[in-house]
């Protein structure tokens, strides 16, 4: 990679995330990590199975390519999290198809819903991906020295993402039991901060959760929904939205409305992909991989 390219695409955040996009289309973030205590996982998002329009007439194919890339990783992730919009219209047949494809992952799968997965009812989503330890959809767990929270901010939203009082109570109680030195990782479909409210890219009651995350040394919040990589740092909290496996959306404010963005066919794979994340005690390393080879 040319140094100019590297400098153009890299931005350091305070706590140790580095971002770059290499000339080969590989989004990259590199930082030396202490090997001890690190846990790695992969995030994928917004597969929209059932979508079939010129922006990507083969969302099945691009999801399969994504999974092939993950399955080929030399060190398999501890788990793969899908941060929602697995389907386009929440049809049972779309969930069946998605489940078959996602079932080819070698690593264990965690799935949370996007608003496209719960149109009218969340029954089809839960019948495909219900977990016994998450009767309401949200849950937390400890793994590899980190504490993970998988949240749902797409039930009954009125304008933007919404968590609801019951879920926020759960989060506050859950976090109160954690040590401030424990790395915290939060998953939710819609961005938890006000990324671009005019398009609903925010969670209207997210501030209470962010307040509860303030006392921790290192927090990583990973979202989908907006079909593009956006990084944001706010004090101890690192936010990162992920690329879609299906189609891109316009950058905030660059179009009249959000929605599928048509890019030249030769460019499509370069804006789709998956993300690998390593969490160590003091730093998170986030690497975004595009499907372009």
């Amino acid at each position, binding site marked *: 990679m040319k140094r100019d390219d590297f400098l153009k695409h890299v931005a350091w955040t305070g706590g140790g995330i580095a971002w770059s996009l290499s000339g080969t289309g590989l989004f990259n973030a590199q930082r030396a990590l202490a090997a001890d205590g690190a846990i790695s996982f992969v995030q994928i998002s917004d597969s929209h*199975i*059932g979508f*079939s*329009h010129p*922006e990507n007439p083969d969302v*099945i*194919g691009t999801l*399969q*390519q994504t999974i*092939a890339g993950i399955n080929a990783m030399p060190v398999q992730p501890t788990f793969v999290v899908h941060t929602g919009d697995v389907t*386009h*219209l*929440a*049809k049972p*047949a*779309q969930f*069946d*198809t998605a489940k*078959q*494809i996602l079932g*080819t992952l070698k690593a264990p799968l965690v799935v949370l819903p996007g*608003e*496209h997965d719960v*149109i*009218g009812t969340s029954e089809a989503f839960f019948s495909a991906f219900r977990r016994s330890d998450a009767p309401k959809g949200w849950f937390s767990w400890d793994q590899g020295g980190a504490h993970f929270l998988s949240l749902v901010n797409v039930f009954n*939203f*009125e*304008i933007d993402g919404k968590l609801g009082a019951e879920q926020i109570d759960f989060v506050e109680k859950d976090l109160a039991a954690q040590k401030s030195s424990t790395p915290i990782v939060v998953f939710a479909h819609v961005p938890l901060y006000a990324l671009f409210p005019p398009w*609903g890219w925010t969670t209207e009651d997210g501030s209470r959760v962010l307040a509860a995350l303030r006392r921790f040394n290192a927090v990583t919040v990973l979202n989908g929904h907006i079909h593009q990589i956006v990084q944001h740092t706010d004090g101890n909290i690192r936010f990162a939205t992920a690329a879609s496996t299906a189609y891109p959306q316009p950058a905030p404010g660059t179009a*009249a*409305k*959000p*929605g*599928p963005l048509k890019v030249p066919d030769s460019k499509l794979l370069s804006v789709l992909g998956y993300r690998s994340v390593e969490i160590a005690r003091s730093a998170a390393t986030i690497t975004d991989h595009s499907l372009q080879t």
Partner: protein
Amino acid sequence: MSRLFTGLQIALLAVTLTAGANAAAPPLLPAVATVHIKDFKYHPPALTVHVGDRVTFVNDDDEAHTVTATDKSFDSEGLDTAGTWQHVFTKPGTFHYFCELHPYMKATIIVLPGAAK
């Protein structure tokens, strides 16, 4: 990679195509009015009909939308691009509806008592 997945891909495509065929909109029946969904808005934003009237909703956007009553008395579920949905209004009243995917999209149907002319 594509070779590895060919068999699965064909099977999945079959599933998807079958699902698509099942989801195809039925032939449109005569309706007194049509609401078009365009640029994340319902056109017209307020529509007056009579009890027994059928209304057609058409999604002209690139993005999926729904036509969902605030009181849940009707719900199109997901309408993909070019998707259509029809509903017969059987009770008088003022019905606010919105898009479940973009809840800031809002509109109203006013249903007057008495049969349509």
